[in-house]
Protein backbone atom coordinates (compact mmCIF):
# COMPACT_ATOMS: atom_id res chain seq x y z
CA UNK A 1 0.00 0.00 0.00
CA UNK A 2 1.83 3.14 -1.16
CA UNK A 3 2.05 6.21 1.01
CA UNK A 4 -0.53 8.93 0.27
CA UNK A 5 0.85 11.94 -1.58
CA UNK A 6 -0.75 14.41 0.80
CA UNK A 7 -1.20 13.77 4.49
CA UNK A 8 -2.84 16.22 6.83
CA UNK A 9 -2.69 15.48 10.54
CA UNK A 10 -4.68 17.25 13.27
CA UNK A 11 -4.63 20.62 11.55
CA UNK A 12 -6.05 23.49 13.56
CA UNK A 13 -6.42 27.24 13.02
CA UNK A 14 -8.23 29.89 15.04
CA UNK A 15 -8.95 33.51 14.25
CA UNK A 16 -9.61 35.12 17.60
CA UNK A 17 -12.70 33.33 18.86
CA UNK A 18 -13.50 31.58 15.62
CA UNK A 19 -12.27 28.07 14.97
CA UNK A 20 -11.70 27.92 11.23
CA UNK A 21 -9.98 24.55 11.13
CA UNK A 22 -10.78 22.05 13.87
CA UNK A 23 -8.52 19.02 14.17
CA UNK A 24 -8.71 18.18 10.45
CA UNK A 25 -7.16 14.95 9.19
CA UNK A 26 -7.04 14.11 5.52
CA UNK A 27 -5.26 11.80 3.11
CA UNK A 28 -5.02 12.04 -0.66
CA UNK A 29 -3.59 9.06 -2.54
CA UNK A 30 -1.47 9.50 -5.62
CA UNK A 31 -3.59 9.89 -8.76
CA UNK A 32 -6.73 10.43 -6.74
CA UNK A 33 -9.22 13.23 -7.27
CA UNK A 34 -10.32 14.14 -3.77
CA UNK A 35 -13.12 16.64 -3.30
CA UNK A 36 -13.81 18.78 -0.24
CA UNK A 37 -17.34 19.99 0.20
CA UNK A 38 -19.20 21.79 2.94
CA UNK A 39 -21.61 24.64 3.52
CA UNK A 40 -20.44 28.23 3.33
CA UNK A 41 -18.18 29.18 6.17
CA UNK A 42 -17.01 25.60 6.64
CA UNK A 43 -13.39 26.70 6.35
CA UNK A 44 -12.61 25.18 2.96
CA UNK A 45 -10.64 28.14 1.64
CA UNK A 46 -8.82 28.46 4.96
CA UNK A 47 -7.82 24.83 4.62
CA UNK A 48 -6.49 25.35 1.10
CA UNK A 49 -4.64 28.46 2.31
CA UNK A 50 -2.89 26.39 4.96
CA UNK A 51 -2.06 23.62 2.53
CA UNK A 52 -0.55 26.05 0.02
CA UNK A 53 1.37 28.02 2.64
CA UNK A 54 -0.54 31.27 2.59
CA UNK A 55 -1.58 30.73 6.22
CA UNK A 56 0.30 29.09 9.05
CA UNK A 57 -1.73 26.56 11.03
CA UNK A 58 -1.75 26.91 14.80
CA UNK A 59 -1.04 23.20 15.20
CA UNK A 60 -0.92 20.02 13.19
CA UNK A 61 1.21 18.73 10.39
CA UNK A 62 1.13 18.64 6.61
CA UNK A 63 3.13 16.06 4.69
CA UNK A 64 3.63 16.15 0.95
CA UNK A 65 5.34 13.21 -0.73
CA UNK A 66 6.61 12.17 2.68
CA UNK A 67 8.20 15.58 3.46
CA UNK A 68 6.95 17.75 6.29
CA UNK A 69 5.97 21.01 4.63
CA UNK A 70 4.07 22.59 7.53
CA UNK A 71 6.58 25.43 7.94
CA UNK A 72 7.57 25.89 4.31
CA UNK A 73 6.84 29.27 2.69
CA UNK A 74 4.49 29.43 -0.26
CA UNK A 75 7.01 29.66 -3.02
CA UNK A 76 8.89 26.61 -1.75
CA UNK A 77 5.78 24.42 -1.82
CA UNK A 78 5.20 25.41 -5.40
CA UNK A 79 8.74 24.37 -6.20
CA UNK A 80 8.06 20.97 -4.62
CA UNK A 81 5.21 20.40 -7.02
CA UNK A 82 2.18 21.55 -5.08
CA UNK A 83 0.33 24.00 -7.31
CA UNK A 84 -2.69 26.05 -6.37
CA UNK A 85 -5.44 27.87 -8.20
CA UNK A 86 -7.42 30.66 -6.57
CA UNK A 87 -11.12 30.93 -5.84
CA UNK A 88 -11.18 34.59 -6.71
CA UNK A 89 -9.39 35.06 -9.98
CA UNK A 90 -5.88 36.14 -9.22
CA UNK A 91 -4.02 36.78 -12.43
CA UNK A 92 -1.60 39.35 -13.75
CA UNK A 93 -4.18 41.45 -15.48
CA UNK A 94 -1.82 43.76 -17.32
CA UNK A 95 0.00 40.84 -18.88
CA UNK A 96 -1.26 38.72 -21.78
CA UNK A 97 -2.70 35.26 -21.16
CA UNK A 98 0.47 33.78 -22.57
CA UNK A 99 2.64 35.97 -20.33
CA UNK A 100 0.65 34.79 -17.33
CA UNK A 101 1.22 31.13 -18.06
CA UNK A 102 4.84 31.73 -19.11
CA UNK A 103 5.50 33.21 -15.69
CA UNK A 104 4.27 30.01 -14.12
CA UNK A 105 6.71 28.10 -16.33
CA UNK A 106 9.50 30.55 -15.50
CA UNK A 107 9.07 29.96 -11.78
CA UNK A 108 10.17 26.39 -12.24
CA UNK A 109 12.80 26.99 -14.92
CA UNK A 110 15.75 27.83 -12.71
CA UNK A 111 16.42 31.21 -11.18
CA UNK A 112 15.26 34.44 -12.75
CA UNK A 113 18.29 36.61 -12.18
CA UNK A 114 18.70 37.07 -15.90
CA UNK A 115 18.81 40.75 -16.65
CA UNK A 116 19.30 41.13 -20.34
CA UNK A 117 17.69 38.50 -22.56
CA UNK A 118 14.13 39.15 -23.67
CA UNK A 119 12.10 36.62 -21.69
CA UNK A 120 9.23 36.78 -24.16
CA UNK A 121 11.56 35.42 -26.80
CA UNK A 122 12.72 32.39 -24.83
CA UNK A 123 11.33 29.19 -26.34
CA UNK A 124 11.91 27.17 -23.15
CA UNK A 125 9.39 29.48 -21.47
CA UNK A 126 6.97 30.21 -24.29
CA UNK A 127 6.51 26.68 -25.66
CA UNK A 128 5.35 24.94 -22.46
CA UNK A 129 3.11 27.98 -21.88
CA UNK A 130 1.51 27.63 -25.30
CA UNK A 131 1.11 23.90 -24.71
CA UNK A 132 -0.70 24.50 -21.41
CA UNK A 133 -2.99 27.08 -23.01
CA UNK A 134 -3.76 24.66 -25.79
CA UNK A 135 -4.62 22.03 -23.19
CA UNK A 136 -7.32 24.29 -21.79
CA UNK A 137 -8.45 25.43 -25.21
CA UNK A 138 -7.24 29.02 -25.13
CA UNK A 139 -4.58 29.00 -27.86
CA UNK A 140 -6.37 31.54 -30.00
CA UNK A 141 -6.65 33.99 -27.09
CA UNK A 142 -3.07 33.68 -25.92
CA UNK A 143 -1.78 37.09 -26.97
CA UNK A 144 -4.65 39.13 -25.55
CA UNK A 145 -4.20 41.00 -22.26
CA UNK A 146 -5.75 39.03 -19.45
CA UNK A 147 -7.97 41.96 -18.57
CA UNK A 148 -9.70 41.57 -21.95
CA UNK A 149 -10.78 37.99 -21.35
CA UNK A 150 -14.01 36.72 -19.85
CA UNK A 151 -14.38 35.34 -16.35
CA UNK A 152 -14.68 31.82 -17.67
CA UNK A 153 -11.48 32.25 -19.65
CA UNK A 154 -9.78 33.56 -16.51
CA UNK A 155 -10.63 30.33 -14.72
CA UNK A 156 -9.07 28.44 -17.62
CA UNK A 157 -5.91 30.52 -17.45
CA UNK A 158 -5.81 29.74 -13.74
CA UNK A 159 -5.86 26.07 -14.59
CA UNK A 160 -3.26 26.51 -17.33
CA UNK A 161 -0.95 28.27 -14.88
CA UNK A 162 -1.30 25.47 -12.39
CA UNK A 163 -0.57 22.93 -15.11
CA UNK A 164 2.34 24.83 -16.65
CA UNK A 165 4.48 24.09 -13.64
CA UNK A 166 4.14 20.33 -14.21
CA UNK A 167 3.00 19.85 -10.66
CA UNK A 168 2.62 16.60 -8.78
CA UNK A 169 -0.57 17.80 -7.13
CA UNK A 170 -3.16 20.47 -7.81
CA UNK A 171 -5.05 22.35 -5.12
CA UNK A 172 -8.10 23.72 -6.91
CA UNK A 173 -10.19 26.25 -4.98
CA UNK A 174 -13.64 26.39 -6.61
CA UNK A 175 -12.51 26.30 -10.25
CA UNK A 176 -16.16 26.40 -11.38
CA UNK A 177 -16.91 29.59 -9.43
CA UNK A 178 -18.97 31.92 -11.57
CA UNK A 179 -19.06 29.67 -14.62
CA UNK A 180 -22.19 29.13 -16.71
CA UNK A 181 -23.46 25.62 -17.57
CA UNK A 182 -21.49 25.31 -20.80
CA UNK A 183 -18.24 26.50 -19.28
CA UNK A 184 -18.76 24.29 -16.25
CA UNK A 185 -19.20 21.23 -18.44
CA UNK A 186 -16.02 22.17 -20.28
CA UNK A 187 -14.14 22.47 -17.00
CA UNK A 188 -15.45 19.12 -15.78
CA UNK A 189 -14.24 17.45 -18.99
CA UNK A 190 -10.86 19.10 -18.56
CA UNK A 191 -10.52 17.92 -14.98
CA UNK A 192 -11.64 14.42 -15.91
CA UNK A 193 -8.91 14.32 -18.57
CA UNK A 194 -6.33 15.37 -15.98
CA UNK A 195 -7.37 12.76 -13.46
CA UNK A 196 -5.01 10.09 -14.55
CA UNK A 197 -1.84 12.13 -14.64
CA UNK A 198 -2.23 14.34 -11.61
CA UNK A 199 -3.35 14.15 -8.04
CA UNK A 200 -6.07 16.71 -7.42
CA UNK A 201 -7.60 18.15 -4.28
CA UNK A 202 -10.74 19.97 -5.30
CA UNK A 203 -12.82 22.37 -3.23
CA UNK A 204 -16.15 22.88 -4.94
CA UNK A 205 -19.77 23.86 -4.40
CA UNK A 206 -21.02 22.46 -7.69
CA UNK A 207 -22.40 19.10 -6.52
CA UNK A 208 -22.91 17.66 -9.99
CA UNK A 209 -19.27 18.23 -10.81
CA UNK A 210 -18.12 16.85 -7.48
CA UNK A 211 -20.06 13.63 -7.72
CA UNK A 212 -19.08 13.21 -11.38
CA UNK A 213 -15.37 13.58 -10.76
CA UNK A 214 -14.42 12.63 -7.23
CA UNK A 215 -12.84 9.36 -6.22
CA UNK A 216 -13.28 10.30 -2.57
CA UNK A 217 -15.07 13.13 -0.80
CA UNK A 218 -14.43 14.81 2.54
CA UNK A 219 -17.19 16.87 4.13
CA UNK A 220 -16.24 19.89 6.22
CA UNK A 221 -18.69 21.62 8.57
CA UNK A 222 -17.58 24.49 10.84
CA UNK A 223 -13.98 23.49 10.28
CA UNK A 224 -14.46 19.87 11.29
CA UNK A 225 -14.45 16.74 9.15
CA UNK A 226 -17.81 15.04 9.62
CA UNK A 227 -17.44 12.38 6.96
CA UNK A 228 -14.92 11.09 4.46
CA UNK A 229 -15.22 8.34 1.85
CA UNK A 230 -16.31 7.39 -1.69
CA UNK A 231 -19.21 9.37 -3.24
CA UNK A 232 -21.80 6.66 -2.71
CA UNK A 233 -20.99 6.44 0.99
CA UNK A 234 -21.16 10.21 1.37
CA UNK A 235 -24.49 10.42 -0.38
CA UNK A 236 -25.88 7.81 1.97
CA UNK A 237 -24.41 9.35 5.12
CA UNK A 238 -27.09 10.76 7.42
CA UNK A 239 -24.90 13.35 9.10
CA UNK A 240 -23.90 14.72 5.75
CA UNK A 241 -27.46 14.80 4.52
CA UNK A 242 -28.56 16.66 7.57
CA UNK A 243 -25.78 19.16 7.65
CA UNK A 244 -25.42 19.85 3.99
CA UNK A 245 -27.09 17.95 1.23
CA UNK A 246 -30.52 18.23 2.83
CA UNK A 247 -30.34 22.01 2.62
CA UNK A 248 -28.87 22.18 -0.87
CA UNK A 249 -30.60 20.95 -4.02
CA UNK A 250 -30.84 17.19 -4.01
CA UNK A 251 -28.54 15.43 -6.42
CA UNK A 252 -30.24 12.91 -8.55
CA UNK A 253 -28.68 9.86 -10.05
Amino acid at each position, binding site marked *: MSEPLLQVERLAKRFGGIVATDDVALEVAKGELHAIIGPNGAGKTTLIAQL*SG*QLRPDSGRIRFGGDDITAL*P*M*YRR*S*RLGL*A*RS*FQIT*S*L*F*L*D*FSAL*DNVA*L*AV*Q*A*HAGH*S*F*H*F*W*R*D*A*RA*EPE*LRQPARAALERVGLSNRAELPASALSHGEHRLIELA*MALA*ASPRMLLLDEPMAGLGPEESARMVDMLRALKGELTILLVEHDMEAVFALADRITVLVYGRVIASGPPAAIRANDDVRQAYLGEAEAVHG
Partner: protein
Amino acid sequence: MMPALNLRTVVIVALLAALVLLPVYTGLTGNRFLVTLFTRILILALAAVSLNLILGYGGMMSFGHAAYLGIGGYAVGILAHEGIVSGFVQWPVALLASALFALVIGALSLRTRGVYFIMITLAFAQMAYYVASGLSRYGGDDGLTVYKRSQFFAPLDLANKTQFYYLCLALLLAAIYFVWRLTNSRFGLVVQGSRSNDLRMRAIGFPTNRYRLVCFVIAGTMCGLAGALLANHTEFVSPAMMYWTRSGDLIIMVVLGGMGSPFGPLIGAAALLVLEEALSGITEYWQIILGPLLLLVVLFAHGGIDGLLRLARRKVPA
Protein backbone atom coordinates in the same frame (compact mmCIF):
# COMPACT_ATOMS: atom_id res chain seq x y z
CA MET B 1 9.87 46.15 -32.22
CA MET B 2 9.09 48.44 -35.12
CA PRO B 3 8.23 51.92 -33.88
CA ALA B 4 5.00 53.00 -35.49
CA LEU B 5 4.61 56.47 -36.90
CA ASN B 6 2.42 58.06 -34.28
CA LEU B 7 2.39 61.10 -32.04
CA ARG B 8 4.28 59.46 -29.20
CA THR B 9 7.16 58.25 -31.35
CA VAL B 10 7.41 61.59 -33.10
CA VAL B 11 7.55 63.46 -29.81
CA ILE B 12 10.20 61.18 -28.38
CA VAL B 13 12.38 61.25 -31.49
CA ALA B 14 12.06 65.02 -31.67
CA LEU B 15 13.02 65.33 -28.01
CA LEU B 16 16.06 63.11 -28.46
CA ALA B 17 17.13 64.98 -31.58
CA ALA B 18 16.77 68.29 -29.75
CA LEU B 19 18.86 67.00 -26.87
CA VAL B 20 21.61 65.78 -29.17
CA LEU B 21 21.71 69.00 -31.14
CA LEU B 22 21.36 71.40 -28.22
CA PRO B 23 25.07 72.23 -27.76
CA VAL B 24 25.32 72.92 -31.48
CA TYR B 25 22.43 75.37 -31.17
CA THR B 26 23.83 77.11 -28.12
CA GLY B 27 27.26 77.23 -29.71
CA LEU B 28 25.74 79.21 -32.55
CA THR B 29 23.53 81.50 -30.45
CA GLY B 30 25.91 81.86 -27.54
CA ASN B 31 23.19 80.98 -25.00
CA ARG B 32 25.34 79.05 -22.52
CA PHE B 33 22.59 78.97 -19.94
CA LEU B 34 20.58 76.42 -21.89
CA VAL B 35 23.40 73.89 -21.70
CA THR B 36 23.52 74.30 -17.93
CA LEU B 37 19.77 73.92 -17.62
CA PHE B 38 19.60 70.87 -19.83
CA THR B 39 22.57 69.20 -18.16
CA ARG B 40 20.61 69.47 -14.95
CA ILE B 41 17.57 68.01 -16.71
CA LEU B 42 19.63 65.06 -17.97
CA ILE B 43 21.06 64.32 -14.53
CA LEU B 44 17.70 64.50 -12.77
CA ALA B 45 16.20 62.44 -15.58
CA LEU B 46 18.76 59.76 -14.80
CA ALA B 47 17.68 59.84 -11.16
CA ALA B 48 14.05 59.65 -12.30
CA VAL B 49 14.82 56.68 -14.57
CA SER B 50 16.21 54.84 -11.56
CA LEU B 51 13.16 55.73 -9.48
CA ASN B 52 10.84 54.66 -12.29
CA LEU B 53 12.46 51.23 -12.15
CA ILE B 54 11.31 50.60 -8.60
CA LEU B 55 8.21 52.79 -8.62
CA GLY B 56 6.76 52.47 -12.10
CA TYR B 57 7.74 48.90 -12.83
CA GLY B 58 8.20 47.49 -9.36
CA GLY B 59 5.41 49.28 -7.53
CA MET B 60 7.74 50.21 -4.67
CA MET B 61 6.75 53.64 -3.48
CA SER B 62 10.06 54.87 -2.05
CA PHE B 63 9.99 58.35 -0.59
CA GLY B 64 13.68 58.25 0.19
CA HIS B 65 15.21 58.01 -3.24
CA ALA B 66 16.88 61.42 -3.05
CA ALA B 67 19.17 59.93 -0.40
CA TYR B 68 21.17 58.26 -3.17
CA LEU B 69 21.69 61.57 -4.92
CA GLY B 70 23.22 62.73 -1.68
CA ILE B 71 25.31 59.63 -1.14
CA GLY B 72 26.72 59.70 -4.65
CA GLY B 73 27.27 63.43 -4.40
CA TYR B 74 28.94 63.30 -1.02
CA ALA B 75 31.18 60.45 -2.13
CA VAL B 76 32.56 62.74 -4.81
CA GLY B 77 32.56 65.78 -2.53
CA ILE B 78 34.24 64.15 0.44
CA LEU B 79 36.91 62.44 -1.63
CA ALA B 80 37.59 65.65 -3.53
CA HIS B 81 37.88 67.51 -0.21
CA GLU B 82 40.41 64.94 0.96
CA GLY B 83 42.46 65.43 -2.18
CA ILE B 84 41.26 62.41 -4.17
CA VAL B 85 40.02 63.90 -7.42
CA SER B 86 40.32 60.92 -9.71
CA GLY B 87 36.95 59.96 -11.09
CA PHE B 88 38.21 56.38 -11.32
CA VAL B 89 38.20 56.29 -7.52
CA GLN B 90 35.33 58.66 -6.74
CA TRP B 91 32.69 57.20 -9.00
CA PRO B 92 33.10 53.54 -8.05
CA VAL B 93 32.99 54.62 -4.39
CA ALA B 94 29.81 56.57 -5.09
CA LEU B 95 28.24 53.53 -6.76
CA LEU B 96 29.38 51.12 -4.09
CA ALA B 97 28.20 53.34 -1.24
CA SER B 98 24.81 53.74 -2.88
CA ALA B 99 24.54 50.01 -3.49
CA LEU B 100 25.36 49.20 0.13
CA PHE B 101 22.95 51.77 1.49
CA ALA B 102 20.22 50.43 -0.81
CA LEU B 103 20.98 46.87 0.25
CA VAL B 104 20.64 47.65 3.95
CA ILE B 105 17.60 49.88 3.61
CA GLY B 106 15.94 47.55 1.16
CA ALA B 107 16.49 44.52 3.35
CA LEU B 108 14.84 46.30 6.28
CA SER B 109 12.13 48.19 4.41
CA LEU B 110 10.91 45.55 1.98
CA ARG B 111 9.49 43.56 4.85
CA THR B 112 6.80 46.21 5.01
CA ARG B 113 4.13 47.25 2.53
CA GLY B 114 2.05 50.20 1.53
CA VAL B 115 2.19 53.29 3.69
CA TYR B 116 4.60 51.63 6.14
CA PHE B 117 7.06 51.15 3.29
CA ILE B 118 6.69 54.80 2.34
CA MET B 119 7.36 55.87 5.92
CA ILE B 120 10.33 53.67 6.51
CA THR B 121 12.09 54.65 3.28
CA LEU B 122 11.39 58.25 4.15
CA ALA B 123 12.79 57.75 7.63
CA PHE B 124 16.01 56.25 6.33
CA ALA B 125 16.45 59.13 3.91
CA GLN B 126 15.98 61.59 6.76
CA MET B 127 18.62 59.69 8.70
CA ALA B 128 21.03 60.16 5.83
CA TYR B 129 20.11 63.84 5.80
CA TYR B 130 20.88 64.20 9.50
CA VAL B 131 24.15 62.33 9.23
CA ALA B 132 25.25 64.67 6.45
CA SER B 133 24.13 67.70 8.49
CA GLY B 134 26.26 66.46 11.35
CA LEU B 135 29.44 66.15 9.30
CA SER B 136 30.96 69.43 10.40
CA ARG B 137 34.25 68.52 8.78
CA TYR B 138 32.48 68.44 5.44
CA GLY B 139 30.39 71.55 5.81
CA GLY B 140 27.45 70.18 7.79
CA ASP B 141 24.32 72.15 7.07
CA ASP B 142 26.13 74.68 4.92
CA GLY B 143 27.30 72.11 2.46
CA LEU B 144 30.61 71.45 0.77
CA THR B 145 32.09 73.07 -2.30
CA VAL B 146 33.65 70.80 -4.88
CA TYR B 147 36.60 72.79 -6.19
CA LYS B 148 37.73 70.35 -8.81
CA ARG B 149 35.56 68.13 -10.94
CA SER B 150 36.23 64.41 -11.23
CA GLN B 151 39.34 63.77 -13.25
CA PHE B 152 39.51 61.14 -15.93
CA PHE B 153 41.93 60.61 -18.78
CA ALA B 154 42.49 63.44 -21.25
CA PRO B 155 40.83 64.55 -23.50
CA LEU B 156 37.78 64.00 -21.30
CA ASP B 157 37.42 67.17 -19.24
CA LEU B 158 34.33 67.40 -17.09
CA ALA B 159 34.85 71.12 -16.62
CA ASN B 160 34.15 71.55 -20.33
CA LYS B 161 30.43 72.19 -20.34
CA THR B 162 29.79 70.69 -23.75
CA GLN B 163 31.76 67.53 -23.03
CA PHE B 164 30.03 67.14 -19.68
CA TYR B 165 26.65 67.60 -21.32
CA TYR B 166 27.31 64.83 -23.83
CA LEU B 167 28.66 62.56 -21.08
CA CYS B 168 25.43 63.00 -19.12
CA LEU B 169 23.35 62.44 -22.25
CA ALA B 170 25.25 59.26 -23.08
CA LEU B 171 24.87 57.91 -19.56
CA LEU B 172 21.16 58.76 -19.55
CA LEU B 173 20.50 57.03 -22.85
CA ALA B 174 22.53 54.02 -21.72
CA ALA B 175 20.47 53.89 -18.54
CA ILE B 176 17.18 54.08 -20.45
CA TYR B 177 18.31 51.28 -22.74
CA PHE B 178 19.47 49.20 -19.78
CA VAL B 179 16.17 49.65 -17.96
CA TRP B 180 14.28 48.75 -21.11
CA ARG B 181 16.19 45.50 -21.47
CA LEU B 182 15.95 44.81 -17.75
CA THR B 183 12.19 45.17 -17.63
CA ASN B 184 11.72 42.73 -20.49
CA SER B 185 14.09 40.15 -19.07
CA ARG B 186 13.12 37.29 -16.79
CA PHE B 187 14.10 39.45 -13.83
CA GLY B 188 12.00 42.35 -15.03
CA LEU B 189 8.93 40.21 -15.55
CA VAL B 190 9.20 38.91 -11.99
CA VAL B 191 9.46 42.44 -10.64
CA GLN B 192 6.49 43.60 -12.68
CA GLY B 193 4.49 40.54 -11.78
CA SER B 194 5.20 41.19 -8.11
CA ARG B 195 3.78 44.67 -8.51
CA SER B 196 0.73 43.35 -10.30
CA ASN B 197 -0.06 40.48 -7.94
CA ASP B 198 2.47 39.63 -5.27
CA LEU B 199 0.47 36.80 -3.74
CA ARG B 200 0.18 35.06 -7.07
CA MET B 201 3.87 35.39 -7.77
CA ARG B 202 4.68 33.67 -4.51
CA ALA B 203 2.03 31.04 -5.17
CA ILE B 204 3.61 30.09 -8.48
CA GLY B 205 7.01 29.84 -6.88
CA PHE B 206 8.90 33.16 -6.80
CA PRO B 207 10.55 34.49 -3.63
CA THR B 208 9.42 37.96 -4.57
CA ASN B 209 11.20 39.89 -1.82
CA ARG B 210 14.54 38.73 -3.10
CA TYR B 211 13.87 40.09 -6.58
CA ARG B 212 12.49 43.32 -5.22
CA LEU B 213 15.62 43.81 -3.16
CA VAL B 214 17.91 43.34 -6.14
CA CYS B 215 15.77 45.79 -8.12
CA PHE B 216 16.00 48.25 -5.24
CA VAL B 217 19.79 47.99 -5.16
CA ILE B 218 20.09 48.48 -8.92
CA ALA B 219 17.91 51.58 -8.73
CA GLY B 220 19.84 52.99 -5.78
CA THR B 221 23.16 52.47 -7.52
CA MET B 222 21.94 54.17 -10.68
CA CYS B 223 20.74 57.12 -8.63
CA GLY B 224 24.11 57.26 -6.90
CA LEU B 225 25.66 57.77 -10.32
CA ALA B 226 23.27 60.66 -10.87
CA GLY B 227 24.42 62.05 -7.54
CA ALA B 228 28.05 61.92 -8.60
CA LEU B 229 27.13 63.74 -11.80
CA LEU B 230 25.14 66.32 -9.86
CA ALA B 231 28.07 67.04 -7.57
CA ASN B 232 30.20 67.70 -10.62
CA HIS B 233 27.55 69.83 -12.24
CA THR B 234 26.77 72.14 -9.33
CA GLU B 235 30.27 71.88 -7.83
CA PHE B 236 28.53 71.80 -4.48
CA VAL B 237 26.91 69.19 -2.22
CA SER B 238 24.69 69.77 0.76
CA PRO B 239 22.33 67.80 2.99
CA ALA B 240 19.42 69.58 1.31
CA MET B 241 19.95 67.27 -1.69
CA MET B 242 18.55 64.47 0.48
CA TYR B 243 15.65 66.17 2.25
CA TRP B 244 12.47 64.19 1.83
CA THR B 245 10.78 66.81 -0.29
CA ARG B 246 13.50 66.28 -2.92
CA SER B 247 12.37 62.68 -3.13
CA GLY B 248 8.93 64.11 -3.73
CA ASP B 249 10.27 66.14 -6.65
CA LEU B 250 11.68 62.98 -8.22
CA ILE B 251 8.37 61.20 -7.78
CA ILE B 252 6.62 64.11 -9.48
CA MET B 253 8.93 63.75 -12.48
CA VAL B 254 8.21 60.05 -12.77
CA VAL B 255 4.46 60.42 -12.39
CA LEU B 256 4.22 63.48 -14.64
CA GLY B 257 6.19 61.75 -17.36
CA GLY B 258 4.38 58.48 -17.09
CA MET B 259 5.16 55.63 -14.70
CA GLY B 260 6.32 52.34 -16.06
CA SER B 261 7.31 53.70 -19.46
CA PRO B 262 10.92 53.82 -20.66
CA PHE B 263 11.00 57.47 -21.71
CA GLY B 264 8.50 58.73 -19.16
CA PRO B 265 11.10 59.90 -16.63
CA LEU B 266 12.97 61.91 -19.26
CA ILE B 267 9.75 63.52 -20.46
CA GLY B 268 8.76 64.23 -16.87
CA ALA B 269 12.09 65.75 -15.89
CA ALA B 270 12.20 67.88 -19.02
CA ALA B 271 8.60 68.98 -18.65
CA LEU B 272 8.98 69.87 -14.99
CA LEU B 273 12.22 71.81 -15.26
CA VAL B 274 11.26 73.60 -18.47
CA LEU B 275 7.92 74.47 -16.89
CA GLU B 276 9.76 75.76 -13.84
CA GLU B 277 11.98 77.98 -15.96
CA ALA B 278 9.12 79.24 -18.11
CA LEU B 279 6.71 79.90 -15.26
CA SER B 280 9.22 81.52 -12.94
CA GLY B 281 9.83 84.07 -15.63
CA ILE B 282 6.15 84.98 -15.41
CA THR B 283 5.60 84.89 -11.69
CA GLU B 284 7.74 83.96 -8.74
CA TYR B 285 4.78 82.15 -7.24
CA TRP B 286 4.66 79.56 -10.04
CA GLN B 287 4.70 76.68 -7.58
CA ILE B 288 1.16 77.57 -6.68
CA ILE B 289 0.25 76.19 -10.09
CA LEU B 290 2.49 73.14 -9.78
CA GLY B 291 0.71 71.82 -6.70
CA PRO B 292 -2.79 71.69 -8.18
CA LEU B 293 -1.30 70.54 -11.49
CA LEU B 294 0.18 67.51 -9.77
CA LEU B 295 -3.15 66.86 -8.13
CA LEU B 296 -4.91 67.03 -11.49
CA VAL B 297 -2.42 64.61 -13.03
CA VAL B 298 -3.00 62.21 -10.17
CA LEU B 299 -6.76 62.43 -10.50
CA PHE B 300 -7.26 62.54 -14.24
CA ALA B 301 -4.12 61.79 -16.22
CA HIS B 302 -2.85 58.74 -14.45
CA GLY B 303 -0.48 57.66 -17.15
CA GLY B 304 1.24 61.02 -17.19
CA ILE B 305 2.34 62.71 -20.37
CA ASP B 306 3.44 59.44 -21.89
CA GLY B 307 -0.03 58.07 -21.20
CA LEU B 308 -1.63 61.03 -22.94
CA LEU B 309 0.61 60.52 -25.95
CA ARG B 310 -0.36 56.86 -26.08
CA LEU B 311 -4.02 57.80 -26.09
CA ALA B 312 -3.37 59.75 -29.26
CA ARG B 313 -1.82 56.60 -30.72
CA ARG B 314 -5.03 54.64 -30.38
CA LYS B 315 -6.83 57.08 -32.61
CA VAL B 316 -4.34 56.56 -35.42
CA PRO B 317 -4.72 53.17 -37.09
CA ALA B 318 -1.49 51.16 -37.02
